[in-house]
């Protein structure tokens, strides 16, 4: 049957070939592709800074680059990875591409705003890259005052403005998704027939819309303080530097759920598809996304337990911090239960999904260590924290993103990549990742502080392990670039539904038409209905 497949004549990639037809497109799928290219570039820039960090930390003395350069490395690594890679990653690429076909819509509610958000992202990115080339920043991605306001003499304001601008891109994406999910669903597509991917993106959008404005205003306050000499956080005028931290984390904690919620959404799709089984406890998984989004807003001060907040406030925020763990746990257990009595197979996306399960569990559970007051006093600002968030953000979010990319790649391009190399890369990433970041838990509990350019000799062995692992990890990330590009031309034609998946997006050709569907679909059954799929397949044969 495979040899009969061919790429359809009409699809969104063929709807105009000029640069103009891309830059002025209103098609969510083309915008998604442009996002994919942009964030990939950003990922590799951020990754190069990580290489710099790990190279420096291979020896304890701090002899590869100067302390100032090192400080700029991790700051720019963090800024790029967080604001220009991970926050836009799944929503702006996979969400943009898939939400309309998943709900049976022709496009997002506001196609022009969608394009605008891409341009805004570019402007913000260029701004930030410019700030980095012309001197860099060294405040850490957290921009704590008073160092950022008065101490540092690097490009703090330009970088912050770059983030400010990119924030609007994130807000507009979220706004677009919310309205689209509410208003653009195909006939019959009720809320409880939505794929869990869409639920997760709905929750993400809430966070984007409600949180991002606060970081924007915080950046404005920082900019007027630094640029115009206003005193808002300035301790010399009786201002409170800790106020900045409150405002910063009011956004930046929820922002971690902007990064992880879409990844959780991808996971539900992957687990269901590759076990050919409906997701166990659909409504619990759906509502846990919303719960995570809402609870995410009430825990922020767990980043400030030793920053001078009152003992009472520390207790309240520690208590609340555990509230996010419960819906996360619910998700983990439901996915596990989904596998029970499934028909499981291990194509590359599923390998990533399995990797995710392990790494996210470790990352999330170490979050509990940090949320526990007595322990965080010791662990705060050590490599334990660094390991925690890399386990979630790299081990969790990126694993899931890669899984999703491999899963929907045939839908996006119409072609398959090399199964062999993709498995090799998935395994390299998993192994390399653990070698890189597991030792950091150990060295962190040992007391190694983060943002350290040099460190005590006795910690070298663990750091060398970490640096070695990063090499494997880095190569694991380069490989997909090669076979993905290769597949564009030489890949096997995939056909509309190579995985036998159940979602609406698989019921149209690959790559899809510009309008996604020939006719507006009418939905008359639950999601993840594999019985029906099989019955139909049999009927056809």
């Amino acid at each position: 049957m495979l040899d009969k497949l061919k790429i359809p004549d009409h699809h969104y990639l063929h709807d105009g070939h000029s640069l103009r037809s891309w830059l002025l497109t209103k098609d969510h799928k083309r915008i998604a592709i442009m996002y994919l290219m942009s964030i990939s570039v950003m990922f590799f820039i951020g990754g190069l800074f990580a290489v710099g960090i790990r190279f420096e930390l291979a020896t304890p003395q701090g002899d590869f680059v100067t302390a100032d350069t090192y400080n700029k490395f991790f700051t720019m690594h963090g800024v790029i990875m967080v604001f220009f890679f991970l926050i836009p990653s799944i929503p702006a690429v996979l969400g943009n591409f898939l939400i309309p076909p998943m709900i049976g819509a022709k496009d997002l509610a506001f196609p022009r705003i969608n394009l605008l958000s891409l341009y805004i992202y570019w402007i913000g990115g260029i701004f930030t890259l410019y700030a980095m080339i012309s001197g860099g920043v060294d405040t850490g991605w957290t921009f704590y005052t008073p160092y950022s306001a008065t101490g540092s003499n690097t490009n703090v304001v330009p970088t912050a403005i770059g983030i400010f601008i990119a924030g609007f891109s994130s807000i507009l994406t979220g706004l677009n998704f919310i309205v689209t999910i509410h208003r653009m669903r195909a006939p019959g597509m009720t809320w409880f027939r939505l794929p869990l991917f869409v639920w997760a993106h709905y929750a993400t959008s809430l966070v984007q819309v409600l949180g991002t404005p606060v970081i924007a205003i915080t950046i404005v306050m920082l900019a007027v303080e630094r640029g115009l000499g206003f005193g808002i956080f300035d301790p010399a005028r009786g201002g409170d530097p800790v106020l900045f931290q409150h405002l910063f984390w009011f956004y930046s904690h929820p922002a971690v759920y902007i990064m992880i919620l879409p990844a959780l959404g991808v996971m539900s799709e992957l687990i269901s598809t590759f076990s050919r089984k409906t997701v166990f406890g659909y409504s619990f998984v759906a509502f846990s996304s919303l719960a995570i989004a809402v609870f995410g807003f009430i825990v922020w001060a767990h980043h400030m337990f030793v920053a001078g907040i009152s003992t009472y406030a520390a207790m309240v925020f520690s208590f609340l911090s555990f509230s996010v763990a419960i819906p996360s746990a619910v998700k983990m257990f439901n996915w596990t239960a989904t596998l029970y009595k499934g028909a499981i197979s291990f194509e590359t996306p599923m390998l990533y999904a399995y990797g995710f399960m392990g790494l996210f569990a470790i990352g999330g559970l170490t979050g509990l260590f940090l949320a526990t007051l007595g322990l965080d006093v010791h662990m705060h600002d050590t490599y334990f924290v660094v390991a925690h968030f890399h386990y979630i953000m790299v081990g969790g979010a990126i694993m899931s993103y890669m899984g999703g990319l491999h899963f929907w790649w045939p839908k996006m391009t119409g072609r398959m990549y090399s199964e062999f190399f993709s498995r090799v890369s998935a395994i390299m990433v998993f192994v390399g990742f653990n070698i890189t970041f597991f030792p950091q838990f150990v060295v962190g509990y040992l007391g190694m502080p983060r943002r350290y350019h040099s460190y005590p000799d006795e910690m070298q062995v663990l750091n060398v392990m970490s640096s070695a692992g990063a090499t494997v990890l880095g190569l694991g990330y380069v490989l997909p670039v090669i076979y993905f590009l290769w597949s564009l031309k030489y890949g096997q034609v995939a056909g509309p539904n190579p995985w036998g998946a159940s979602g609406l997006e698989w019921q149209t050709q690959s790559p899809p038409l510009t309008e996604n569907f020939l006719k507006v679909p009418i939905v008359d059954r639950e999601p993840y209905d594999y019985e029906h799929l099989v019955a139909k397949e049999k009927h056809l044969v």
Partner: protein
Amino acid sequence: MKIFGIPIFPEQASTFAKDVDALYFFIFAVSAFFALAVAVSVIYFGIRYHKTHDGEIGARIEGNLSLELLWSVIPTVIAMVMFGWGASVFYHLRRPPAEAMHIYAVGKQWMWKFQHLEGQREINELHIPAGQPVKVTISSEDVLHSLFFPAFRTKIDAIPGRYTELWFEAQTPGSYHIFCTEYCGTNHSGMIGTVTVLEPAQYQVWLQGGGVEGTLAQRGAKLFNDLTCSTCHLDSGQGRGPSLKNIVGKTVELQNGSLVMVDEAYLRESILNSQAKIVKGFQPMMPTFQGLVSEENLVALIEHVKSLSPDATTAAPATGAPSAAVSTQKPAAAEKK
């Protein structure tokens, strides 16, 4: 603890270390249990239910309410245990005992300055006796820093314009790391030092050694003269300013009728922003010393004033009072003890 000569677990050198590590192992065990439970089931299901033929699909199982409840409630209960345990350790970490020995620390780009009441001053080094609770009061001269003693399992940020404090009771003599853990600019990773825990007897010897220019309070007394404080604050109470004898630990009545408890934060405020609180019966004529006394000299002055109240048990400084903090109503009631 070491494996093949590589340290993988920090020394336990304080009384907290055991408490914190016990908590650590508890959460570790819980986490390991859940992580393994998930990993094992996932792998087992992957093998047991591996897809065997084309077109095979999984069983139709929609969900199970009691299971959902079970696995929401159990983590909730466990999480509450973690919270409670963690909070009680934390509470302990934040409550220095009254008899604690007192040391001042000032963070500054990029060094730690420690001052003993007996007058010794150290930079990036700290000597303390074993078996004795030690309270460190911390401030910063420029940006945020954070004073971290990994072997004691405690740290706290140094915040410009405020006092924060931590305490510990070192147990095992030896030398341990001091780190600055709040990013503070170029040489953040160079802002490190060593804390040396000595046997109490050795500590006494150490105290005697070295050319010390008098105790901290004595240095403060000299400053008290040099800065002309003494011209107004006569012990007799006849000067332009009130007598500072025996005021620490007492309450003072202010001009607007409210009462203030005299503690370190109040003294600090009185010196830096003298007219924030005007003592009843006096004119607001004391000049502001903001910018004229360094953090180090400030603690010396405060120590001198405290030495004028020999039988006061020093009240803990109210954590985090900004230097210009103004409170017009009730006395700055320290966090409820």
